[in-house]
């Protein structure tokens, strides 16, 4: 009869240690993989919404109106005769032309409440982690007021420089590094372009 030889204690301990190392590494990779997945998904979405915001600034407002109310020149940055003096955004994140209260809501999601952890964190609009401004109600992807510069760098007073921030508020509020979920985009638009104002 063959002798039933089992594992020695050393063999079992070494195999366990080796397997443990692999399991720990696998777990770390999986957790990192989930984190990466969230980050990649957010970047794809932010990129898409940046494109959307760009199109809304350039053309969207025009198509959001019937164009029959006698104010056809203010429906998009391309159609404006001058840069609006205020920011372009509603308090819920949808684009809004403060000059005519035209609100574009295609980039909205369900309104959610963000608990601020400090100035600019986890989303750019946060003011402080206590008192007024410590809690925000957000419903869109526009992270802060769209800045318009129609000043001295405007070409012949015919262009306006627009800077906008796209934020994934849902991911930002649960992220260790919330800055990953806000990104700044810049573009220049020509005002009052003939093709945007057909006669």
């Amino acid at each position, binding site marked *: *009869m063959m002798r*039933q030889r089992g594992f020695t204690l050393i063999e079992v301990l070494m195999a366990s240690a080796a397997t443990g190392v692999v399991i720990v590494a696998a777990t770390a990779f999986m957790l990192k993989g989930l984190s990466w997945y969230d*980050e990649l998904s957010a970047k794809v979405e932010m990129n898409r919404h940046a494109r959307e915001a*760009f199109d809304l600034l350039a053309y969207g407002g025009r198509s959001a109106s019937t164009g029959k109310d006698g104010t056809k020149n203010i429906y998009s940055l391309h159609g404006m005769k001058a840069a609006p003096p205020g920011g372009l955004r509603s308090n819920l994140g949808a684009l809004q032309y403060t000059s005519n209260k035209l609100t574009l809501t295609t980039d909205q999601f369900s309104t959610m409440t963000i608990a601020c952890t400090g100035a600019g964190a986890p989303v750019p609009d946060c003011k402080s982690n206590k008192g007024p401004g410590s809690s925000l109600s957000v419903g869109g992807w526009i992270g802060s007021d769209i800045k318009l510069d129609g000043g*001295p760098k405007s*070409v012949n007073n015919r262009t306006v420089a627009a800077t906008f921030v796209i934020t994934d508020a849902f991911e930002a509020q649960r992220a260790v590094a919330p800055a990953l979920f806000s990104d700044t*985009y810049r573009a*220049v638009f020509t005002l009052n372009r003939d093709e945007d104002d057909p006669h």
Partner: protein
Amino acid sequence: MHSSNSARQGGFSLIEVLSASMILSIFITAIGACWISADRQINALVLRQKAVFVASSEMERVTTLYNTTSFAQSGPVTTTGYDGPAYLPATRLIYPTPLTPYSGGPASDFTTTASAGFQTGDAFQVYISNQLLPALNRAFVWIDQSQGVMARVSWTTTAITPAACVVGSDGCGCLAPSGVFSAQCQRLDLYLEYPYRFVAGVPVADGTLKTVTLSTLVGRHT
């Protein structure tokens, strides 16, 4: 029966366990590498999106200059020595520095600079790296200022022949830079090459350059 069962109870040897662990580790590392690769691809996609925005922006500025000022007559500076793919021209136009007002424009149409202040300056400034050697003259703009990523902007113009329409008819025709009706618009091809990094005040190509190309027609409007 008892004897044959005992013979099968060999279990795994230490070598077998370690080999399996090693194979599993390689597998996990490969998955990690895939994630890192995906991360890079997405970052490249986001950067390209920003580059397209910048290219569109530069096209807006250049076309407005061509369409509403006499910039086309005396503004652009010819530069040579572009070493991109063969189908891209080696000689192109860039902004002059400084860009003085053209044809009744305001005191500063917009700002160009050749100083290191560009690093912390306005995102919409144009940085001219060198005005001494045409082959080294290049105009740069920010793609992502927070990440220090820049792009090189240039363009070419070609007179469109034959004329596309009857001279002077309504809604048709283009003014020459001099302001005379010529009915000969220009085809403008704009090139934006990226990524560059601003290192010690000098833009340095960061790996293989990619080019965004946009085209439009320009000519002064009446």
